[in-house]
C-alpha cells in the first residue's frame, strides 16, 4: 500500500461523500417512483453529513482555547440534518400517500395536472 492510501485523511472521506452525492443525484434523476426520489435525497443528505463530520474531525476538533471542550459543531449539524431528514421523510411520505390516493399510482410522471 502506498502511503497515500494507507494514510486515511480528509481527502478520502470527501471523495467518498462526493461519490455518495453523485449517486444521490443520479437516483433523483432516474427513479420514476416518488419514494425512489426520496431515497436519492437521503443519499445526498448522507453525503453532506459525511462531509460535516469529516471536516469536524480533521479541521475543527481541536481544543477550543484550552478550555477542555472540543468544538463539535460538525457533529451537531449532522445530528440536525439527520433529524431534519427524518422529518422530511415523514412529510414526504404523507404527501406520497395522498398522491397515491389521488392518482392511484406512485409514478411521479402521472402527476402532471399543474402543467402550463
Amino acid at each position: 500500500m502506498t502511503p497515500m492510501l494507507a494514510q486515511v485523511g480528509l481527502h478520502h472521506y470527501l471523495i467518498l461523500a462526493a461519490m455518495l452525492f453523485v449517486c444521490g443525484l443520479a437516483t433523483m434523476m432516474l427513479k420514476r417512483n416518488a419514494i425512489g426520489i426520496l431515497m436519492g435525497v437521503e443519499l445526498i443528505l448522507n453525503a453532506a453529513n459525511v462531509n460535516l463530520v469529516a471536516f469536524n474531525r480533521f479541521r475543527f476538533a481541536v481544543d477550543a482555547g484550552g478550555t477542555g471542550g472540543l468544538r463539535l459543531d460538525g457533529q451537531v449539524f449532522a445530528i440536525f440534518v439527520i433529524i431534519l431528514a427524518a422529518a422530511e421523510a415523514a412529510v414526504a411520505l404523507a404527501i406520497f400517500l395522498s398522491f397515491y390516493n389521488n392518482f392511484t399510482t406512485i409514478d411521479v410522471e402521472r402527476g402532471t395536472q399543474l402543467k402550463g
Partner: protein
Amino acid sequence: MPLPALLLLISTLLPLAAFGVLLFAGKRLGNPLAGMVGTAFIAGSFACAITGMIFWLSGGTGPMAGAAEWGAGKGPIVLPISWLPTGGGIAQDHPGYLDVGLYVDSLTVAMFSMITLVALVVHLFSIGYMAHDRNFHRFFTYLSLFCFSMLGLVIGGTLLQIFVFWELVGLCSYLLIGFWHEKRSAANAATKAFVVNRIGDFGFLIGMGILFYHLGNVSLPHLHALLHTAGMGGAVALSDGTIFGSGLLTIMGVGLFMGAMGKSAQFPLHTWLPDAMEGPTPVSALIHAAPMVAAGVYLVGRIFPILTPDAKLFIAIIGCATLTIGALIALAQSDIKRVLAYSTISQLGYMMLALGVGSWVGGMFHLLTHAFFKSLLFLGAGSVIVAAGHEQEMVRFGGLWRKIPVTAVTFGIAVLAIAGTPFFSGFYSKEMILRDAGAFSVLAVDLSHGRGLGYWLFFILPTGVAYLTAFYMMRCWMLTFWGKPRDLKLYAHARESAVMYVPLVLLAVLSIIGGKFLGIEDLLNWSMRESGQYCTQLIQKEARPIGGGGERGEMKFAGYSTAWPAQLPGEEESLGDDELVVRERTPSQRAQIEGHHLVERFAYWAFAVGLGLAAAIYWKGYAVADWLMRIPPAHWVRNWLYRGMYFDELYQIVWVDGVILGGAAICRWIDRWVVDGTVNGASTVVRVISSLAGWIDRHLVDGAVNGTGELAHGVGAAMRSAQSGRIRLYVMVLLAAVALGLAGAVMVALSG
C-alpha cells in the same frame, strides 16, 4: 427559602393544583364532590396562609419575636429571580435583568389571610348556593383559578408579575361574571367588565413602560429604593445621572393608577361593577366585594412610595368623586345586589381617597375590614336571594327576619360595621380615613394660605357620605328584613340552610372583631417599617439616588409627609394624647390632631343619624318613602340616581354612538372631498392626455403592439412546453444546471 415565603408560595400554588384537578377531573367528580375538592384545596391554602402568618409574627419584633432577619416590623422577604436579560437598567445588583420573584411583608401576609379566608368561606357557601347548577364543577374550576391568580398577584414581587396576574384575575372575572352565559345580560356584563378593565390596563401598561424605560427593572424593592423621594415632589436624579422628571413621574403614577381605576371601579370606569352583579352571588362576594376589586387599592398601596404629590392629589380627587357618586346612586337602588355593588364602589372610593391623602394605613386597613363585612353582606344577600327563590328586588321582600333569622342578624351586623358603629370593624378604619382626610384638608388649606378652600371637600364629602352610607345600608336591611312581607308567596317559601349560614356567622364574628382585636393595624404599621428598612439597606448598598426635594412639592404638602417611608410608625407612638400637643410638632402631626378633632366633632354620630333616619323612614316598608317621593324634584332625582346617574347612557352616546357617528362623518367628508376630488381631478387630467395619446396610439403604436403581441405569443407557446408538470424534468434541469455551475466553478478555480 424562608418558611413564611415557602408557606405562602404553597398557599398560592394549592389553588392552581385545584384548578388542574378540577379542569381535568371536575366533570368526573360530579356535583358535590368537585366543590368539596376545591374547598379542600382552598382550606389547605388558608391553613398555609395562617401558619405563614404565625411564623411571620414569630420572626418579627412583636410579642412572638424570633431571631430571623425577616418578620413583622423587621424586614420583608425578597426573593428575586433574574428572568429576562434586557441589557440595561439602573439597579446595580441586577444589571439589565427583568426580575420576577416573591415579595413578602406584613401586608402580603395580611392580604393572604384575608383572601384565603374569604375564598374559603365563599367556596363553602357556593357548595350550597350552586348546588343545582349544571356547570357546578366549572364554577369551582374558575374559582380556583381566580384564587391562584389573586394570591399570585399579592405575592408578586415586581410590577410585571403583578400585571400578569392582574390580567389573569381579569380573565377569571370575565369568566365568572359570564358564568351564566346563556343569559344575554350576563354575557354582556362580562364583556363590559373586560373592556372597561382594558381601558384601565392601558394606563397601567403606559406607567409600567415609563418605569421600565427609565429603570430597566420594575421590581418593587428597587422602585421603592430608587424613587422613594418622589413623594416629596420634584424630579428624581437617578444614579446613572439621568433625571426622572416630576411631570413624567406624575404621568407614570396616574397611568398605574388608571389600572387600579379599572379594576377597583373608580369614577369614570365604575360602570362595570353594578352590571357584574349578573354573575352568581358568591362571585360577587369573592370578586366584586373583597379580593379582586381590592387589587386596585392593593396596587396603589404597593406603588404608594413612588407616587408624586400631584398623582396623589389626582387619586384623592378620583376617590372622592367615586365615593360620593357611589353612595348617592346606592340610595335609590331597589335591587339588593346593586345596592351592595354601589356601596362597594363607594367604599373603594374611601380607600382610594385614603391613599390619595397619604393615609396608607387607613386605606389598607379599610381594605381588609371592608373585605370581611362586604363579603358578609354579599353572602347574606346570596342567602336572601336563595331563600327568595332567586328574587333580587327588595320591593318584593320584607319581614324576612322571621324566616331567615341568622341571615338577618349577620346581615345586620355587617350593616352596623359598614355604617361605622363603634366597636365594629368598619368604625376604626373609617375613622382613620376621615381623620387623615381631615388632616390633609387642614394642612392643604393652611399651606395655600386660605386660598384653597376647595380642599375642604376632601373632608366634607367623605363625612357626608358616612351619613349616607349608614342610611342606605340600613334602608337595605329594613326593606329586606323588617316590616310586613310584601310578597306572601315568596315569604312562604323562604328558608335558609346551614351550609350557607355557617360562613355568614364566621364572617360576622370577623366583622366585629376585625377592627381592634385582630391586630391588623399593627401589621400594617409594621409593613411600612419593613419596606422602609429594606429600602434603606438597598439605598446604602447601591448608589444612592439623589432626592430632589423640589420646591413645588414642599409648597404643597411639605410638612405633611406623603413621602413614605420617611416617617416610621414607631416614632409615631409618642403622638396621641392631647396633652403633648404643646410640644414641638411637625405641621403634619399638628394637622393630624386637628383632623382627629374634626372627626370627633362631625363624624362620630354619622352611624346613629343614618341608621335612625333609615329605620324611621322605612319602618313600614315603602309608605313613608313613597310619600316623600311625591315632592316634585325628589322623584326626578330618584330616577336620576336609580339609573346610575345615566353614566351608561352617557358613555353610550359619547363613546359608542359618538365614535360611530364621528367616524361616519369623517368618512363621509373624506369620501366627498378627498377621494372624489382626487378622482375628478385625475379624470380631467387623464381625459386631456388620453385624447393626445389616442392619436399617437392609433397611428404609431398599434403596429408595434401587434408585432410585440405576436412575438409574445410565440415565445409563450414555446416556453409553455417547459412547464410540463413533470417533476423529474424539473429535477433534471435543476441538477444539470448545478452540475454545469459546479464544473464551471472548478474550471475557473483550477485555471486561476
